[in-house]
């Protein structure tokens, strides 16, 4: 498998074409707008979290490259039904997967995004929706507007 095919695995191409949960959740309890000014990737992540901290609904909507879009699609698939705590743990695991040499992380089928690690300039693409998720759930920014580069 070439580097490229490693990066753009079938599943990624497929999720890029048909992203899941590609919508705003309404009404939602949590929100964040993530933008990468350099490449123009731009997504809104919305969630409805129940009183017992379970993610009942999650959606993402916006515009961006195949990596960012597939990442959002796979993220929303994985997170639905998890608790906020579990979601944040998964986020940390995912970040480890694509930014460190750690081999032993539990991310399920998100593993298909591992190839990104070999393309350092694309890592931020894969991370954007996850950073927005983090911001939505933990208020890393006041305005729930975040930018990454």
């Amino acid at each position, binding site marked *: 498998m070439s580097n490229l095919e490693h990066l753009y695995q079938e599943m990624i191409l497929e999720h890029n074409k048909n992203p899941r949960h590609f919508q705003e959740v309404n009404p939602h309890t949590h929100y964040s707008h993530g933008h990468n000014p350099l*490449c123009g*990737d731009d997504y809104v992540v919305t969630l409805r979290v129940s009183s017992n901290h379970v993610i009942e609904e999650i959606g993402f909507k916006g515009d961006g*490259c195949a990596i960012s879009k597939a990442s959002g699609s796979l993220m929303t698939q994985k997170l639905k039904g998890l608790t906020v705590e579990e979601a944040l743990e998964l986020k940390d695991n995912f970040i480890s997967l694509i930014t460190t040499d750690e081999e032993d992380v539990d991310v399920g089928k998100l593993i298909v995004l591992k190839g990104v690690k070999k393309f350092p300039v694309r890592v931020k693409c894969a991370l954007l929706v996850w950073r927005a998720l983090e911001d939505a759930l933990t208020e890393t920014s006041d305005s729930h507007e975040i930018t990454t580069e």
Partner: protein
Amino acid sequence: MTRFTPENPRSDFSIFTHHADLVYLDSTATTHKPDGVLDAMAAFLKEKNATVHRGIYGLSVEATDRCEHVRQQVKGFINAEKEEEIIFVKGATEAINLVAHSYGKAHVGKGDNIVISHMEHHANIVPWQQIIESEDQLRVCQITDEGELDLEHLKTLIDNQTKIVALTHVSNVLGTVNPIKECISYIREHSSAKILIDGAQAIAHMPVDVQDLDCDFYCFSGHKMYGPTGIGILYGKHDLLLKMPPYQTGGDMIEFVSFEKTTFAKPPARFEAGTPAIVEIIGLGAAIDYIQGITLERLQEIDMELFELANTELQSIPELNLIGTAAHKSPVFSFTIKGIHSHDVGTCMDQEHVAIRVGHHCAQPLMKRFGVPATARMSFACYNTSDDIERAIKALKKTIGFFI
């Protein structure tokens, strides 16, 4: 000084020996440097290095002469009237900042306006935003769907409150070569605005004659004209420069300093605070030698050949949407591909060793104008060949095949 082989300038550039496989299509961002430029810089550092101005010893006198000689070269290269009109700066960005802060701040008051266009690089937008009080003082000339200046709209923007008009000579995204001379003569007739031309993308591609253009300021960067980074030129009409206050201050630009009162040297020294980029000035001189060796006529021919071929090939790809189809264009091609994000295009092309740029190209308002978040861009310089175009097109088709 610089050897040149007009038939095949590519062999003047060692980078292509080290990367035999490289198809470099990002010359709009920065050009490669011919060996003659590197050699001139290395020889200066090994044989002549010294500071300039005021040295009484031989090395320093010679270094000063060498730098002043480059000033003369630049004067000749753009046909300025006087060498005092040539100011060494860091690059086009610094040049525009200098004019905005030194000239603009003093002359653009409440109610006055500055006119730019929708195709400007951030370097020719943001400095002007910094010196105005309210956003409506910045008037923006529309561009057509082809990516040409809307000259009728421009005319409606110019009035007697227009203090500065700042336009790019060639667009770094669209490739459009603007009809600068006609614009300037219209502006001259209808206002007393001072006119700055951003020549960053023109200077290595066409003859520039600032007296014929009759602009007040013209600027460009060394690194986009086969020269080094860290050096650029601001041309300004002498009578204007004479009246302008300094921008940066420090050594070499003063006349007298006391704690009570400081007076400043005449231009160009007034605008060159601190130790200049000496070795970069030498490199810029060698780059001009190189260009004049090949001749701008030949460079234009090469551009034309590359333009025709690339344009035809790109237009023949049905999925490709070319942004910027002006009648008069430099070989710069921005495009999007339906269904594939530019970022993905860039990554795929890189796997085929085709270096293109993707993103907003420091022109976010222009991206918005064309309703795209980003584009992919191929741009050409004298070392590119038809082989490069062939490989780029092949890589592009492979990319499309991969995604669609």
